[in-house]
């Protein structure tokens, strides 16, 4: 039931993308969200799609894995697209019914938004699929390091993030176990009307929260018992080493972005 959720899941591998420094992947994924807005014409969308597809192929995980990752978000994507199509009212009208009209600009905008959405999700999925959660948290901590100077508790934030990431699979397993236990007691999930379906989850959510809180208290106690303090300079077990591949990856992304900007300049 919960094992279809791919968000935040890491699949170990040895591809070039897997081996890149988590910092590069994080920077590129975040930068991509902004850079994609440079795409305004079909050639530039084609270029951005080609880049994304290349990265996806390079992870060596197969397209099916990604399609499964997109599936839970498809409604959000379609909803956003539908909003664009219905509420952009400039340009030649294709269809009209009362105050509802579908215009050429709306459809073009809708498709553009859909592609943007899709590409951003794909690139983010590449990040989470190929980067171990703890590496990701480390990378975030290192990139946020400058903020320490203005009093942001970077180490604590990173710890919170890595604990949260670490416990996603645990909580999913536990949720599955509780779901099964309640099914054994006659609860029917995914049956009946919306209200019944929502109500069916109460017997799952309550134990899940209680156990999560218990676990958090235990974890806190265990950390304190071992003398953990967040505010001291600590060294890392895993060291990140910037390698030539990382420079190449970053340069490739910069070239991709420049090309995108150039396409915008040419095609408007």
């Amino acid at each position, binding site marked *: 039931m919960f094992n279809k959720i791919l968000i935040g899941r890491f699949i170990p591998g040895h591809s070039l993308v897997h081996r890149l420094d988590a910092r590069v992947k994080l920077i590129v994924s975040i930068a991509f969200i902004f850079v994609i807005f440079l795409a305004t014409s079909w050639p530039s969308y084609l270029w951005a799609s080609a880049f994304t597809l290349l990265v996806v192929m390079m992870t060596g995980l197969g397209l099916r*894995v990604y399609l499964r990752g997109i599936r839970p978000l498809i409604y959000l994507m379609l909803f956003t697209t539908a909003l664009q199509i219905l509420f952009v009212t400039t340009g030649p009208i294709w269809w009209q019914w009362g105050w509802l009209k579908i215009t050429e600009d709306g459809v073009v905008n809708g498709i553009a938004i859909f592609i943007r959405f899709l590409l951003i999700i794909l690139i983010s999925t590449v990040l989470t699929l190929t980067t171990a959660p703890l590496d990701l948290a480390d990378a975030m901590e290192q990139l946020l390091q400058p903020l320490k100077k203005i009093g942001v508790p970077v180490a604590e934030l990173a710890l919170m993030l890595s604990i949260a990431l670490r416990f996603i699979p645990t909580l999913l397993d536990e949720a599955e176990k509780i779901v099964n236990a309640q099914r054994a007691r*006659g609860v029917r999930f995914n049956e009946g009307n919306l209200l019944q379906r929502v109500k069916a989850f109460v017997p799952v959510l309550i134990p899940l929260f*209680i156990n999560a809180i218990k676990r958090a208290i235990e974890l806190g106690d265990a950390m304190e018992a071992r003398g953990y303090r967040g505010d001291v300079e600590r060294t890392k077990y895993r060291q990140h080493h910037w390698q030539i591949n990382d420079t190449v990856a970053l340069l490739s992304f910069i070239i991709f972005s420049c090309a995108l900007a150039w396409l915008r300049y040419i095609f408007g």
Partner: protein
Amino acid sequence: MAINFQEVGFTYQAGTPFASEGLHDVNFKIPLQQFTALIGHTGSGKSTTLQLLDGLTIPTVGKVEVLNQTLQADTLIKTTNQLREHVGLVFQFPEAQLFEDTVLADVMFGPLNFGASKTEAKQRAQEALRLVDLSAEFESQSPFDLSGGQMRRVAIAGVLALEPELLILDEPTAGLDPKGQADLMALFARLQQERHLTVVVVTHQMEFVAQYAQHVVVFEQGTVVKEGTPAEIFADSAWLRERQLDVPMVRQFTDLLTQKGVALTPTLDLDQLTDQIVAKIQGGRDV
């Protein structure tokens, strides 16, 4: 109709990169109205087998026959709900499933789900609570204020209140104190005797297996490697030790004596062993 596994296989998350085999080529029978113990290492497929018995998961290959229903790959999971009405499944650490405000409400939850009236559910819940030795004063308490052992018993009562024909328990005594463990196992054996239930227990405690089980099924690496009576299973202690399974104390003691040249008839019963030893000692004196 006995409970029957035929060539059963189960793959977790089949068709995804996380696919992993849970069971393969599983063949065994669970006799009705008997006490059956499933033993084997952690990860040997016992818990998956229990979920198949309750129709919570459907085998990827082969078929499972349980209480007049046949489960196989094309069985719709929705149709297994009626099976669950007759099967009570107690998961490992079942106290994690408690959620209601009061103990009574939590135990009534199952019967209500299966369509019992409020009065009937209440009566069944109270009966189940008495069975697990929780008096009326607990009924209005919050399950979260109880001790771990009491929570366990509330959770078990929640399943007993379903009045199942087939009662399945996954390591019901794990983490309890010795007395709590013995009490619970004795309760399951008593229920089996008095109500003619079919009881299936997964356990690592061979003492209980030797004491109560009538049928034993041994799991190893996702399949069944041996089944038989406790006497048959525990006859070969070397085979069990190879699989890092415990051998009951009585059997260990007999083995040690046999090694020292004392000829004894194998038994799993402490009294029988004592009688034999006493007879030997007296026999020695007479000579």
